[in-house]
């Protein structure tokens, strides 16, 4: 057997899957901007993504901020550069950790839920029922989730940034003996608009990816409970990988010299 055959087959399969995902994304996005819009469904998804994800994102960023302060202090103490701790905490949180951690957490929580819900609707013919009731599934199921993901993750990340910086503040002031006023002053002093803005752009991108992969995998699930399970796993794994890849690309776009 030709050794290149399986490689070529896998590559063609990858290209076909990319094409299907791209078409799905284009059709879905087109439904986001064409009436009718479903405000009730968008609102429900916003609450699901934004409000109900707040505890898990808050906890994650709080402890990440605390660990960051602790680790950077022990590292910088070797060079007598402890005063850089507030800058490191705030820049790391706003540029990287806030968006990436929130994205990954929401991928696990919301991406999986979307894939499971839409996947179950698919295998129980509820998606077909929508079509027979003259309702486009892309418009009714996918568009509200994309809009909610795109808008709510930036808000979650802004809140997560504040909580993460507060976590660093708690450790620095109450454990490492930093002066509270100086810590806050140093935090603000070197923080630029671009640091926060790049994190928000990342968050919007990650929110879109999480919703898209959840909907795409759920929409194309087949074969009952096992198919829905596979769709859920694929949604989380593919969204997580795409978040990490796009994180690099967006960082390159904003900060590469």
């Amino acid at each position, binding site marked *: 057997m030709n050794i290149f055959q399986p490689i070529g087959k896998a590559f063609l399969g990858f290209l076909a899957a990319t094409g299907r995902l791209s078409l799905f994304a284009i059709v879905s996005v087109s439904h986001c901007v064409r009436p*009718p819009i479903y405000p009730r469904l968008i609102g429900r998804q916003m609450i699901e993504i934004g409000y109900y994800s707040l505890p898990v994102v808050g906890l994650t960023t709080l402890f990440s901020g605390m660990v960051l302060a602790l680790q950077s202090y022990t590292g910088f103490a070797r060079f007598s550069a402890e005063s850089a701790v507030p800058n490191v905490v705030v820049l790391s949180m706003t540029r990287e950790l806030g968006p990436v951690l929130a994205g990954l957490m929401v991928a696990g929580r919301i991406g999986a839920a979307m894939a499971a*819900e839409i996947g*179950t*609707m698919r295998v*129980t*013919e*509820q998606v*077909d*029922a929508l*079509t*027979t*009731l*003259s*309702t*486009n599934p892309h418009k*009714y199921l996918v568009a509200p989730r994309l809009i909610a993901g795109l808008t709510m993750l930036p808000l979650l990340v802004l809140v997560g940034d504040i909580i993460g910086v507060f976590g660093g503040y708690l450790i620095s002031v109450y454990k490492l003996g930093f002066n509270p006023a100086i810590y806050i002053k140093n935090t603000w002093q070197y923080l630029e608009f671009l640091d926060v803005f790049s994190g928000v752009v990342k968050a919007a991108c990650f929110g879109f990816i999480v919703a898209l992969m959840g909907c795409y995998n759920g929409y194309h699930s087949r074969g009952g409970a096992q198919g829905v399970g596979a769709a859920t796993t694929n949604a989380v794994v593919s969204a997580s990988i795409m978040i990490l890849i796009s994180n690099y690309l967006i960082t390159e776009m904003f900060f590469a010299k």
Partner: protein
Amino acid sequence: MSAEANIPPKIKVADLQKRFGPKVVLDGLDLDVGVGESVVVIGGSGTGKSVLLKCILGLLEPEEGTIEIDGQPVIGLPTADREEINRKFGMLFQGAALFDSLKVWENVAFGLIQGGRSDRTEARDIAYSKLADVGLGTDVGGLWPAELSGGMKKRVALARAIATTPEIIFFDEPTTGLDPIMADVINDLIVKCTRELGATALSITHDMASARKIADRIAMLYKGKIIWQGPTSQIDSSGNEFVDQFIHGRAEGPIRMEVRAP
């Protein structure tokens, strides 16, 4: 030529072909359903009955052939035109396919609200009226689909199918999974609702009791083709050995089940 002969069939399927990979499911199928007629397609499991319905509904795209609704070809229509055609349809799915996230009355009112035919309050009143038509009380309207029995789900699905006053109603295995008494209740409701609406009905089933009750005409699907069709009264004297074997449920006969040896 009579005026009746000039009326196109409500549904016209001609030379329909559908395959999944190498497996040919529909192989040049022809079927006409007249205005106000109730046609039941019978056939064994896996013979393509559901595929036929999904092709007519636009859920599957056939490889070849034509499907006309009221004389208008519908294969390959743009999405908006297809949605307009689908407004003529009501559909009762085999597993009811009720939306889990909506209450029973919202399920029934779904087509009215989403289609912009009624506001929410009016749609709610119509939904409760349709639930009453299928023998369900007002207390059922506020329940979730998960709280209903199989028979109640089928009734709710029937209420949803007729809520928009469709011109054509499709029934996919309407009695599957129900006990004989509940199956008969559903059959009676199907006959009553379609007659009251004056709707055209196309059903698929392998339940002969159901077929005899709801059909004006029965067509048998085998190996992707309609191999016999005729009035319900003639099903017992069809003279077709495939039909005879099927309606009497005999293992012996020209139809061989494709069962692999263990």
